[in-house]
């Protein structure tokens, strides 16, 4: 899933890029309005994070341009403008959400996950990934959630990609490179430590006993495996 981030502040842009990539999104970044429009037309991202105050063409104008040709691609405004009128203008132009500066990483994630769910469940129904079971877990990739009985576990896009890959390859070992290629993308530099850390964090959330994992098992020297069943 590709996200276009248009933000003139380089640090915020880079920070958002990192947050999104860590979550499993591919990102396209633009430092001004013209670049953002060009990237949008060339790359057709799945959704767009737009700063309002940008040099050249501002966020409102970009939103207006995009909505002229495309009514479904979700647009999230990111802005320091917290006045009622700014929100109203943004939402009337067809934006889907509004993230106010200063924001926390978790807030950005929560909103981006909400938009991703909407992407899966509304606009692009044909793309909606199917639900599946792993051990006692019900995985709902379209909702970025897993359920164990009454308990709901939030998942990142990357988490669902890893789980989907392991599920698809049930019973077989999935090597680190394959996981990287599938879940991080070709552009990403394969780093075993990054992968191990991610799997470790994921286990903490989905395994009943992370020290003795039942869903994502380590195959030493080879990779990871899901044994099937459930």
């Amino acid at each position, binding site marked *: 899933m590709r996200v276009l981030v248009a933000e003139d*502040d380089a640090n915020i842009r880079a920070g958002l890029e990192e*947050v999104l990539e860590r979550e499993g999104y591919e990102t396209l970044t633009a430092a001004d309005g013209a670049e953002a429009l060009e990237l949008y037309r060339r790359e057709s991202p799945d959704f767009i994070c737009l700063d309002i105050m940008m040099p050249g063409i501002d966020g409102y104008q970009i939103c207006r341009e995009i909505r002229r040709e495309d009514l479904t691609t979700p647009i999230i405004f990111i802005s*320091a403008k917290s006045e009622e009128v700014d*929100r109203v203008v943004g939402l009337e132009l067809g934006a889907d959400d509004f993230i106010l500066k*200063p*924001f926390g*990483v978790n807030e950005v994630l929560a909103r981006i996950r909400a938009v991703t769910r909407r992407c899966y469940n509304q606009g692009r129904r044909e793309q909606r990934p199917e639900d599946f079971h792993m051990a006692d877990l019900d995985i709902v990739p379209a909702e970025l959630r897993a359920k164990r009985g009454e308990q709901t576990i939030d998942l990142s896009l990357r988490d669902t990609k890893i789980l989907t890959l392991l599920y698809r390859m049930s019973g077989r070992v999935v090597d680190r490179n394959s996981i990287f290629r599938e879940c991080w993308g070709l552009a990403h530099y394969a780093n075993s430590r990054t992968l191990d850390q991610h799997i*470790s*964090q994921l286990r903490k959330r989905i395994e009943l006993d992370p020290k003795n994992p039942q869903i994502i098992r380590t195959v030493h020297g080879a990779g990871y495996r899901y044994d099937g069943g459930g």
Partner: protein
Amino acid sequence: MKPKLIAVLALIVLVPLAVVAWLGAKAMGDEQAMRKLGFHELMLGQLSAVDAVLARSVEAYRERLLNEMQPFTLDVDELRRRTRNSPYAVQFYVLGPEDRLIYPPVALADQLTLDERQALERTQQIWDEGEISNRRVDALDSPRGSEYASAGDARWHVWYRDRGLQMILWVREGDYLYAAEVNRTRLLADLITALPETDALAPELAEGQVRLIDSIGRPLYEWGAAEPEEGAEPDVETAVGEPLGAWRLEYYASSSVAGAALGSGLWWNFSATWVLLAMGVFALALYFYREQAAEMREASQRVSFVNQVSHELKTPLTNIRMYAELLEDNIRARDAVEDNQPLTRYVDVIVFESQRLSRLIGNVLSFSRGRRDALDLHPKPGVVDDVIRRVLDQFEPAFESKKVRIDFSPGAPDETSFDPDVLEQILGNLASNVEKYAASGGVLEVASRQEADRVQITVQDRGPGLSAAEGRRVFEPFYRVHNRLTEGVSGTGIGLAISRELARLHGGDLVLLPCEVGARFQLTMSCPPDGKE
């Protein structure tokens, strides 16, 4: 605010002016009535002086007439000679015993002159009816009927004939009654000659006009500087003393004298004073209004400045917060392999403080929007418990370092429609208060409950709590509890005020519930099932 201020100022200005005008008008009315009375009295007094002059003239006339009658004689020729020569009398009369007319000699009717005949025509009725002779002298001293006592024995008899006052002076001498009929023209001339001397006695009269009016309302003489309008009513009038009692004196004040005396100047003075007072009060009100308006403008500029600054702080703060959080995540991920305890603590502080700064800016901006009635809701579908967890997660490191246990009993797991920013801001303020003021309690209990379209969240600490008085004021903007605990603790004093305002905006409320230990806040919000708000 401005219309209210204008209304109050208008009230402050108009009410006293109206009261002053009313009291002044009343006082002026009384004063004018008093002056009118005084003026009337004064003019009456002066007319009396004129009357006294008339009386002296009449008295002098009487003396002269009496002189002409004496020595008393019955000689017809002598009486005829006197009648012919007298400037004061038109005819003398003598009545003999039994009140028979001796002169003019009616017994010798053919010898009567024309004047005598005419005189008899005028007076016949008096002699026939005995109008003079039948009066007892001692009864004549009182001014009754038509006879009037005067000095000596001579008395006046007055009657009306030929549209005018006729006068006879009479005196009894033995069996005889001698009488002289007054020459009216001469009397009037004498009176008029005497009148100008009244100018000295009554100078005010001279400025107006005085008229001597006879018994049928005909002006006999008028003098004075003023020329009253046709048909004007006299300002003061009085009857002339006897025997000219049928005449009267009328006084017409000149407009300037009457105006001055009756207080037109008084009105002018009062009006001028009132206008000056009104101008003064208006000037004062205008001054206060301008001062107030300037102050309000300044205050709004200050708010706008704070607003601007708060906005400008957002971008750097976003970076600090986001990168601190990214760093925190990175460090936590490595925790398993290395001991990063001090690093984690440093980053926790940065993250927490940037979150605190975000809350502060959020409160300042909400407060300034609240002042402008610009607060609004942006409800969207979500789970209340998720938001509570997110807020508590933010506070976890801070509470941990202060050894405060977070005890959350979730009870609002269903998706509803609410504004997560608002809920986060309120809970952030409540949790921040616990962290600042009630960390000594060692526990923060949060419980949520969801029923139909309402969500209820209680936040309870075990800290020092609030007294009843503090509890009443704790939601007022800028109120801070000034006890030992707040000393040295930062805060703006608008967190709870904003939180309550936001809760009410969200169809609920934020209240402080009584409890034995610590403080217990209850937040209610109207959260209809998804999409119905």
